[in-house]
Structure formats: C-alpha cells, structure tokens
C-alpha cells in the first residue's frame, strides 16, 4: 500500500473538533427560520451561556462530570450562536433597513454597485441605498430603468436619486419551478423597482471603495486585452470566463456543451481556479532557498495570500471567489504553520468563518458544491487511487498524473452527483474524460492567460504568447465539443425527490464507511466487535430500500394520475394536460420555447415528458383522449372549461361552465359575461394585465364567485383522478 489512508475514518472526532462545531452551527442556522424568538432574548441566552462557561472554565474544578457538561454547554452555545446569527440576518428585525421604511411613493438615493446591464426590454442595475425619503437607510435594491430612457451613462460608483415604488421581487409560482425571490433574498436583495421614464437623476459622480474601484479598472483592462488578442468569440468567452470570471460572453451553445460534458465548473471561477493560482505561484517557491525555515514560511504565506487577494479582486470579488480565497488562505495557513494539521479541521474552520460572515451562504449552491467536492476529493481520492492501482500500476510520471486526475474526478463525483441530479436533473456520462481534460488543461490555460495579461506590453513575446494561448483554447474547446458529440453523452431529465437525495447520501456514506474500515485478520482477532460495520450495513440496506420504494411510488403516482395545470406564464396562456406520461400542451401566441423554460420545464421533467403535443388555443380537437375542445369550450374529465378570449365571443357560448378561464387579449368587461353566464370558478392567468384582473376580481366578489389569480396564487391545478 503506497498511499496511506490517513483520513479514512470519518468519525475520528479527536482529530477534527471543528467538524462538530460546523455541524451544530449549520443546525442552528437551519432551525432559525422555523422559530421566531425576539432577538433580545436570543442575545440574553447567548450572553448568559458564555458567562457561565467562562465561570466554569476559570474555576478549575475539573471533575469529569463538570468537564463533560462544560463541553456540552459549549456545543449548545455554538448552536445558539448559529441561531442568533441567522436571525440577525433577517431584514424584518432591522429597523434601519429600507424595507421597513417604505411608503406609497419613495424618494431613494443610492450608489450603483453593479454595472448597468442593457437589454432589449429594459436596463437594470443594483443600488446600494443610502437614504430613503431623506432618512438614512441600508439595503440593496434592484432597479429597472424604462426602455424609453435610451441614454443611460451612469458609471459604477455613481450616486443617483430615483423615485418609485419598490415592490417584491416576483417569482413564478409554478409547481417545481425555480424560486427566484428566494434566490435573490439570499443574495441580500429583497425588492425591485420599475422606474417611470425620467424619474431618476444623477446626484454626484463617485467611486467605489478604492480597492474595488481598482479591481474593476483592472478587470476592464484585462478584458479589453483579451478582447483585442482573441478574435474568435468562443475562445474569448472561454478565456474571459476561466481567467477573469466574466461569464457575460458565453453563448448558449458553449454553455450547453460544457454542462452536458460535465466540465461546467471550470467556467465559473471558484475554488479550482484559486487552487490552481496558488499552485502556480507555489511552484516558484521551490527554487528559493533560505537558511531560516521560519522566514521562508512567512514570506511564502504572505506572498501567496497577497496573490490570492489580488486574483480575487481581479475576478470581480464575487462571493464565490471570496469564499474560495478565504478557504484557501486558511488552508495555506494551517498547512504551513501546523505540520500535523487535519485538513477537515482547516476546512471546517474556513466554513465557520464564511458562515459567520454571511449565513446565507448555506443556501448558496456554489458554497455547498465547492465544499462537498473538496471533502469528497480529500476523503475518497486515496481510496480510488488504491483501487486503480490494484489493476494497473503506473510507472511513468505522465501515467501517474493521469491516474491521479482520474481518481480525483471520480472522487469528486461521489458526493456531488446526488445533489447535481437533484438540482440540474442531468448526469454527464463522460465526466471522467471531461474532468481529466478540464482539470489537466485548466492550469495551463490559466497560467498562459495570466502570463499574457502581465506581459502584454512586450511586443514580440506577447504575440507568441497569444498564439500559444489561442492554440490551447482551441484544443480545449475542440476536446469539449468532441466529447459532446459522443453518443449518450449525458443522462437527461432525471428526477429525484429530496428524500431520495438524502437516501442516496446515506447509502454512499455508509458504503464508503464499510469499504474504508475493513479490518485485517489480525485486527479482527484483537477486537472482534463489528458494531459500526453492522450498523453501516443496516443503514445502507435501509436507505437503498427507501430509495427504491420512493422511486416506485413516484412512477406509480406519475403513471396513475390525470391533471390539468394552468401555468402562471407572463404574456401568454400555457396549459399542460397530463395523463400518465402523455402530455398535451395548449398554448397561445405569446408563448415560445425559450421563455417556457423557467415556467414548466421542471414540472415536465417531474412527469417524465419533455416533448408535448402542442396545440393552439384557437384550434379545435374532438378526437383527443386527454381532453375535448370545440370552439371555446373544453371538456376535461367531468369539468366544463370555458376559454374566454376576444375571438371566441363572436361565437355562441354556453350558459354554464365549471371553470371560466380568462386569458389572452380578453377585452370584454366582466359585467356583460357574468350576467348571462353561470360559473363555479373564475381563473385569470398571467397573460392579463393587472387592471383587467382587478375588474374581474371586484365583479366576482360582488357575485360571490370564487376567484383564482395565477399571478398571486400560483399555477391552477385541476386533478382529474
């Protein structure tokens, strides 16, 4: 056995006391939203606990029971701190936050902290607010300028004044869809405002905090250099994403190629990139010889941390990069100063720092994925290396490197894949191939790119460098595209529930526990107890069993149900009718393939059917199993559904219906229709403006007809069976 598996025993607590602390901290943060306790009480509890702990600690009465209870108390305090920290994060407790001072129409002043993004419909930016109606405040606000304001020359750091009415960020309330509101609130952005043309003005030109300002300038300069040197757009997009963390130029084809091959993580600047940068600079230190070891250590640490900070600033100081740099700085620190330090301990410490700084990171996918990947690599890589060496013993240094990379990409997938399936519903089949290529080439691309940036002023050298860089990128993209062309490159549209994901994790962990804790004959002879192993086997079987039951139940439910869903889709009507895996879609004019994606894609994956039989809202279908429609009337199981749009009103319409669906370009007033028509429920979908919705709502309230509004209540679901 060449590679000693030093970190194999996962429950070896004494080596990593901080892992427990992280666990309890996370528990505290998670449980905070479920309980509302006044923040003053929380603080009082924390203070009380810490004072007791200090008293016991200083009293030196160290009997075993006292020490035990003291450590319990400390761990409980950790939990309370997590709880307290998360409740401090809530905006509702913060009287200083602008969301607590809003009125009908507000006058807001704030600094632009994100460059103005110009799009077809409207331009948007992010404001860090300074005052509201002449009172100082804090918080971030998403601002949309009207498209009538064609000239917007606001720069990053400018302070502007706006007047408008901040509203909640809307998120589609469709089944299984992505919750945009939650996503933004985790980023610290709670509200958005749509400005009327002209209701904004410059207060004064200003600059951001000086470090951020220079970072921004440096980034702009670096982007312009790359733009000039790389005429090929794909190459430029890849280079700017991998070296500088700018993903604005990545086309959809490129994105899909990377995500289908499973190499998408190299495009987002994260732990991998920071690690590579540290590795590159670490390489330089090998040559330096110094008599004093301590001196060398200090120099190494300070230079490398400086490099990390500079790199983080150049890449735009996004939260992901800041996290990665905190993580790697602590790793560096630990590895350099404490020779026998445990890597999990250091990782835990960095996680504690990050979580205490901003507990919302816990819901950030980037955070979860980077930590999972790192833990998984550190834990499983030696195991996979051993496994490979049983079949093939590499001798040449190239083959050794390749086997190492293969084992790394295998190990990374172990803890990543359940979560990536849960969130992205796909699994790249050739992840080993793409992972090895990406990780092998990323250092060269990064190094070459950074070298190009720093030596771009040397005339001949820089052209040579550019040629080499573009060749590298070309080769890399070629490899990625060719992997994408391989048959069965990805397993798409897999649906697993949250409980199945947990079961998968349990199964993986317990299987790995069993495999890594195999005792030799001698050990078994000394300690014949096998309790840990037995319970692990039990857990494996149980979780696999639950997983199977879960999947069977899911398929049973999907196959044996019939339902109609009226989605909340902006600017159009979209109705899905399911019977088992059969799917029929009724859509109106404003619906096209692109904007459907966020509305119904995940729900369709859940039902296992992504290519529906699409029918127009105006068409008739009489010979259809799922539903029958003639003119404006549709029959679904035993329900009569009446579609109201302007075209249909010319035709005769029936006197009774179960559901009245008001959609798309319905301009007739509710009075005319509700007088002659009897219905049990009125549904208004997302294609209708608020003005008309309110008219209908009033009328329905008058006549006491139940009213359903998809913009507010989410998609309307009519169960068939």
């Amino acid at each position: 056995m060449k590679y000693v598996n030093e970190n194999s025993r996962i429950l070896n607590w004494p080596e990593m006391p901080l892992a427990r602390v992280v666990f309890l901290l996370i528990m505290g943060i998670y449980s905070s939203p479920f309980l509302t306790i006044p923040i003053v009480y929380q603080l009082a509890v924390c203070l009380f606990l810490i004072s007791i702990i200090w008293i016991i600690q200083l009293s030196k009465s160290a009997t075993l029971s006292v020490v035990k209870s003291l450590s319990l108390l400390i761990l409980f305090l950790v939990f309370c701190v997590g709880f307290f920290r998360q409740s401090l994060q809530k905006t509702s407790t913060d009287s200083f936050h602008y969301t607590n001072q809003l009125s009908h129409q507000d006058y807001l002043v704030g600094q632009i902290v994100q460059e103005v993004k110009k799009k077809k419909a409207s331009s948007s930016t992010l404001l860090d607010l300074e005052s509201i109606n002449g009172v100082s405040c804090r918080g971030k606000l998403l601002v949309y300028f009207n498209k009538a304001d064609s000239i917007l020359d606001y720069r990053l750091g400018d302070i502007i004044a706006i007047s408008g009415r901040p509203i909640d960020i809307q998120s589609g309330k469709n089944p299984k869809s992505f919750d945009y509101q939650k996503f933004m609130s985790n980023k610290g952005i709670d509200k958005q405002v749509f400005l009327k043309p002209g209701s904004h003005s410059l207060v004064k030109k200003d600059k951001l905090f000086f470090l951020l300002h220079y970072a921004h300038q440096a980034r702009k300069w670096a982007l312009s250099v790359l733009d000039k040197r790389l005429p090929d757009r794909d190459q430029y997009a890849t280079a700017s994403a991998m070296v500088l963390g700018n993903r604005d130029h990545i086309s959809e084809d490129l994105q899909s190629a990377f995500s289908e091959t499973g190499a998408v993580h190299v495009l987002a600047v994260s732990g991998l990139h920071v690690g590579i940068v540290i590795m590159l600079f670490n390489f330089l230190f090998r040559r330096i010889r110094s008599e004093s070891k301590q001196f060398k250590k200090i120099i190494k640490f300070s230079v490398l941390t400086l490099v990390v900070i500079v790199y983080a600033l150049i890449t735009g100081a996004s939260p992901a990069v800041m996290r990665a740099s905190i993580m790697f700085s602590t790793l560096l620190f630990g590895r350099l100063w404490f020779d026998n330090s445990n890597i999990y301990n250091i990782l835990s410490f960095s996680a504690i720092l990050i979580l205490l700084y901003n507990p919302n990171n816990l819901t950030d996918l980037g955070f979860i994925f980077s930590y999972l990947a790192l833990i998984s690599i550190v834990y499983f890589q030696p195991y996979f290396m051993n496994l490979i060496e049983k079949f093939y013993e590499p001798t040449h240094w190239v083959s050794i490197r390749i086997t190492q990379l293969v084992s790394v990409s295998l190990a990374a997938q172990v803890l990543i894949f359940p979560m990536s399936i849960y969130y992205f519903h796909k699994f790249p089949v050739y992840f080993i191939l793409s992972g090895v290529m990406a990780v092998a080439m990323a250092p060269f691309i990064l190094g070459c790119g950074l070298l190009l940036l720093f030596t771009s002023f040397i005339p001949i050298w820089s052209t040579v460098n550019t040629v080499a860089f573009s060749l590298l990128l070309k080769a890399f993209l070629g490899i990625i595209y060719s992997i994408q062309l391989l048959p069965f490159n990805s397993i798409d549209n897999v649906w697993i529930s949250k409980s199945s994901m947990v079961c998968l994790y349990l199964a993986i962990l317990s299987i790995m526990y069993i495999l890594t804790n195999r005792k030799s004959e001698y050990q078994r002879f000394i300690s014949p107890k096998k309790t840990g192993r037995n319970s692990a086997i039990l857990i494996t079987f149980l979780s696999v069993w639950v997983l199977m039951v879960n999947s069977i139940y899911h398929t049973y439910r999907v196959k044996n149900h019939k339902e109609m869903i009226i989605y909340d889709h902006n600017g159009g009507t979209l109705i899905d009718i399911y019977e088992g895996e059969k799917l029929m879609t009724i859509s109106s004019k404003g619906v096209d393939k692109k904007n459907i994606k966020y509305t119904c894609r995940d729900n369709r994956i859940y039902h296992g059917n992504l290519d529906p039989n699409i029918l127009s809202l105006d068409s008739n279908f009489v010979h259809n199993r799922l539903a029958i429609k003639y003119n404006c009337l549709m029959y679904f199981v035993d329900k009569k559904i009446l579609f109201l749009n302007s075209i249909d009103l010319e035709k005769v319409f029936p006197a009774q219906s179960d559901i009245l669906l008001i959609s798309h370009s319905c301009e007739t007033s509710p009075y005319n229709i509700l007088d002659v028509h009897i219905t049990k429920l009125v549904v208004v979908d997302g294609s209708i403006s608020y003005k008309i919705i309110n008219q209908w709502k009033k009328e329905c309230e008058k006549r006491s007809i139940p009213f359903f509004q998809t913009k507010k209540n989410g998609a309307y679901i009519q169960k068939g069976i």
Partner: protein
Amino acid sequence: MKFFWDNTYLTRDERSRLIILLSVFILLCIIKFYVVVFYKPTSIPIDKHILDSVEMVSLQKKENYYAKKDFDLSKSYDTTTKNPKLKNKKHETEKPKSFVSFQFDPNKIGKDSLKLLGFSSYATNSLLKYRSKGGVIRSIDQMSKINGLDESTLERLTPYVNLPEHQKKQYASYSSNIQNLDSTQFAKKKKKYKRKNPKVFDINAGDTTAFMNLHGIGRIYSKRIINFRKSLGGFFTIQQIGDVWGIEDSLFQAIMPYLVVNPSLIQKRNINHMDKDSLNKHPYINWQKSKTILAYKSAHGDYQHMDDFYKLHLLEDDFVDTMKHYFVVK
C-alpha cells in the same frame, strides 16, 4: 449513551480555544446587534433641485388626475402617504374654493388671472397651449372645448367673457368665404363626370374594361371580381358577383340586368389531384372542409364519384351542390 458522551467531549485545549473564538464572535454579534436594533436612522438633507427633477414625471401625472376627477377619488387615495412634497401638492389643489369673477378676454389673459378665475391648472395649460399654437377663441362655444374646464365654471364665467367685436366680424366673413369656395369647386368636379354606356356581357368571359363599363364599378371592384373569378375557376350563377367583397346588394341589383353567365366556361379541376394548399386557396373551402375532404380520401382512397361527397357528414348538401360545379372526378 456512551456514544453520545464520547462524541460531545471536548479536550482542554479545544475548550479554551472554542470559548475564546465564541466570545470574540458574540462580541462582534453584539456590535451588529447594536447597529440593527438601537441605531437610529439620521436624516439626510435632500437636494431640492434633484427632488424636483426626479419627481417631475410622477407628480405631473397625479396633478392631471386630480384635475379630471375633481377630488372625489383623491379621498380614496392613501392619506398615510409620508411624502411631504405630495401632501403639499394636494393641499394646493384643494384650497382655492372662493373664486373671483371679472371681465376677461380669453385670448389675452395670463396664467395667474386664470387661476383666480377658477381655472384648474390642467385647463389653464391646455388653453395656453392652444393659444401658443396660433389658436384663437372667437365664440363661447369654443370655450367649452377647452380640456379640463368643467361646466359649472364655464356657466359662472360666460357673462364675463369679453370677445372683441372686430374678431367676431372677421370670423363671419371668413366662414362665408369658405362656403362660396366650396360651391364653385363642387360644380367644377361635377362637370368632369362622364356617363357610362353599359352593355350586356358574359361574366365568365368579360375582362376588367367590360366590368368597368357598369355603373358603380370602377378599377378596384373590377379587379376584385376578376381575381375572385380566377380563384374560383369561373361563375355558375350571376348571384356569385354579390359574393365579391365590398359589392353590396343595392349595387348588385343595379348591375344585374347587364350580366349573363355561361357555366360551360368554368375550368373544372380534378378533386383527386388536389392537395391541402390548393384546396385552401378555393374561396368556398375553408381549412376545416379541406381537412375533412382529404381525410375521407386518405381513409377510403380516391373519390369514385362526385356523390361521394354526400357521405361526408361535416359538409352541408348545399355546399356539395356548389362543389359539383367546380370539381370533377377522373
């Protein structure tokens, strides 16, 4: 139980380090807590110039709104609004209730005096705008057309409107001039009109000139008729001329005596060779009908006889009768 105590036990070093870490953190939290709970927001002076430029748009709209709806709706508008600027505006529009009345010339009066008279700001603006574009008010009727001026104010002010005499006279002479001009031009136009001499002709053979000879049918109608004939293949009765878009019954009755039809000139097409697109081009066949026709064909093979059409339940018998004129089975 042993498992629990084993895993919750912390060594001496761990305890002391954790306690220090936690106390530092709680200290930091207290600072944050102080900021969150006790920190009182301070007021920041607002630059009035910027406030004006920013709120101009929204306030202007509000003003118009009040002028139109005459304060009734403003009560339902949320009175808890904290914006001081908005509140002031509202009071301004509500205050002046006792108005002054004096003689005035609407073509010369200024903005301030209009306000005194009880004009709303919206009405004032519209009057000034009208004047600035060269408009002149010559009668009291014209006053009623000012946007935003309500009837009660107008009634109150009518005795005070002072229109100069000479302007009235000018207006009168101008209008009489226009009337004279109209009558002479009309006469000239009438002289140009030529009488047509319509002749009887076959509508399946006649070209556009033949149709244009008829009374009431010009270039456009004749073209339309010819196009309709082309897409049909020919007419089998005269009544079909009435089907042409835009030709009304009165016109059709007038031209009917001059029309004859020869059905043998109709170009008949083979129904078995028609596809979806060519069927849809026929004016009498819509999308649904073409679908049923083709569906029958795909189910039963080619049509053997024209009477096969009667088997199609979705097609009315009248329709099939007309179809017989245009299609054959070969």
